[in-house]
C-alpha cells in the first residue's frame, strides 16, 4: 500500500482565534513538504491535525499508512534511563534491532543516562531514534532541528531524504532553513 496524506481545505481554530483556513496539502509517496511560517501561525496545530490529534475546524484529512510524530513533547519517562524509556516504545513498535539507529543518531553513550539529565538536542535525537525505529511511512516533524548542532541537523536532512527515497512522506514544520528533497514549501500566514 502506498503512503498517502491528503488534507483538503482545512481550517484551524484555537480558542476564539481562527489560525488559518483553506489549507490544502496533498502528499504522495516520496514527497517532502516544508511547512513554514512565523511563530504562532499554527504550524504545530497543522501537524497535530494531520496526526489526527486535533479535529480541524473545517475540512478533512485522509491518510493511508502509519504516522510517526516528533513534536516538542518527548513522551519518555523523565526518571528512567534513556535505553529503558525508549525500550517501551520499541516493544510497542515491535522493533527487532534498535541499535543501528542509536549509532546513526549518536545516542549509544546516553542509554544509561536518566532522560531528565539529557540536553534539548539529546532529547531530540532520542525522539528521532524512536521515529526511525517505528518505521512509519508518514513522518510529521515539528521543529526537528531545534537544539540540534550543525552536524545533527545535516543528519536529519539526510534521514528525511533517505526516508522519501524509500517511498515515505515527510511533513516538516520548521522556522529554520531545512533542505528537503523537492524543495516544496507551504507557507502558513494568518488567514492563508
Amino acid at each position, binding site marked *: 500500500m502506498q503512503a498517502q496524506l491528503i488534507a483538503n481545505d482545512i481550517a484551524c481554530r484555537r480558542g476564539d482565534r481562527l489560525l488559518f483556513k483553506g489549507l490544502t496539502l496533498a502528499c504522495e509517496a516520496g514527497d517532502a513538504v516544508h511547512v513554514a511560517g512565523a511563530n504562532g501561525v499554527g504550524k504545530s496545530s497543522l501537524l497535530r491535525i494531520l*496526526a489526527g490529534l486535533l479535529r480541524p475546524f473545517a475540512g478533512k484529512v485522509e491518510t493511508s499508512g502509519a504516522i510517526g510524530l516528533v513534536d516538542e513533547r518527548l513522551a519518555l519517562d523523565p526518571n528512567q534511563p534513556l535505553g529503558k524509556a525508549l525500550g517501551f516504545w520499541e516493544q510497542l513498535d515491535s522493533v527487532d534491532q534498535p541499535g543501528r539507529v542509536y549509532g546513526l543518531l549518536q545516542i549509544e553513550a546516553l542509554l544509561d543516562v536518566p532522560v531528565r539529565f539529557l540536553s534539548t538536542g539529546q532529547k531530540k535525537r532520542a525522539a528521532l531514534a524512536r521515529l526511525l525505529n517505528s518505521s512509519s511511512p508518514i513522518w510529521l516533524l515539528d521543529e526537528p532541528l531545534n537544539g540540534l548542532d550543525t552536524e545533527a541537523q545535516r543528519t536529519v536532512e539526510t534521514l528525511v531524504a533517505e526516508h522519501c527515497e524509500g517511498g515515505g512522506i515527510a511533513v516538516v514544520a520548521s522556522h529554520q532553513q531545512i533542505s528537503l528533497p523537492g524543495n516544496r514549501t507551504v507557507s502558513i500566514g494568518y488567514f492563508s
Partner: protein
Amino acid sequence: MRVFLSLLRRDLGLLMPGGSGGSGVLPLLFFLAVAMLYPFAVGPDAALLARTGGGVIWVAALLAAILPLERLVTGDLEAGVFDQLHVRGVSEELVMVVRLIAHWLAFAPLLLVATLPAAALLGLSGETTGTVLLGLLAGTPGLAAVGLAVGALTASLRGGAALAGLMVIPLAVPILIFGAGALSRPDSSGILLTAAISLALCALAPLAAAAALKAARES
C-alpha cells in the same frame, strides 16, 4: 495482547512502590498512621475501639486511595505519551483499562496487608478483621476506578490534584456505605453490594477517563 502487556509492564514499573512515577509507599504509611493516631485521639477504651475500628480503617483506606491520584494521569498527559500512543492506533480506552489495573495493583494489595497491623492496633476481633478485609477487597477496585476517572478529568487543570481529592470523596460514598455497613450486618449482603458497585465503576471509569483524555487534547 502484546500492546496490553507492554502497557501493563510500563504502568506497573511506574506506579508500583519503588517505581519512578507513583507515590511509592506513602499511601500505605498514611493509612497506618491514621490507624495508629485514632486510639491516641479517642483513648484506650478497648470496647469503643473494637466497635468503631472497622469504620476507621475504611475511612483511612478511602483517604489513602486519594494520595496516588496526583501523578496517575497528569505526568503522561504532559509528556505527550497519550499522543504518541494515539498516533500508533492504541485506543485511549485500552490505555485507561491498563492504567486502572496497574493503579489497583499498586495500592490495594499492600493496603490489604497493612489492614492486619491496623486491625491489631485497633484491637479488632478476627471476625471483624475478616469482614473488613473482604469489604476492602470488594471495594478497592471501585475506589481505583473512581480515582482514575477523576484523575483523568482533572489532569489538565491547574490545581487538579486538590480538586481530584474533593471529587473522589462524594463518588466513593456508596462504596463506603455498603463496605463499612457490612460490619454491622450478620450476612454478606453489604460486601456483595460493594462488589457490585465496584464492578459497575470499573466498567464505566475507563470510558470516562478516555473521554477526558480526548477532551484534554482538544482544549
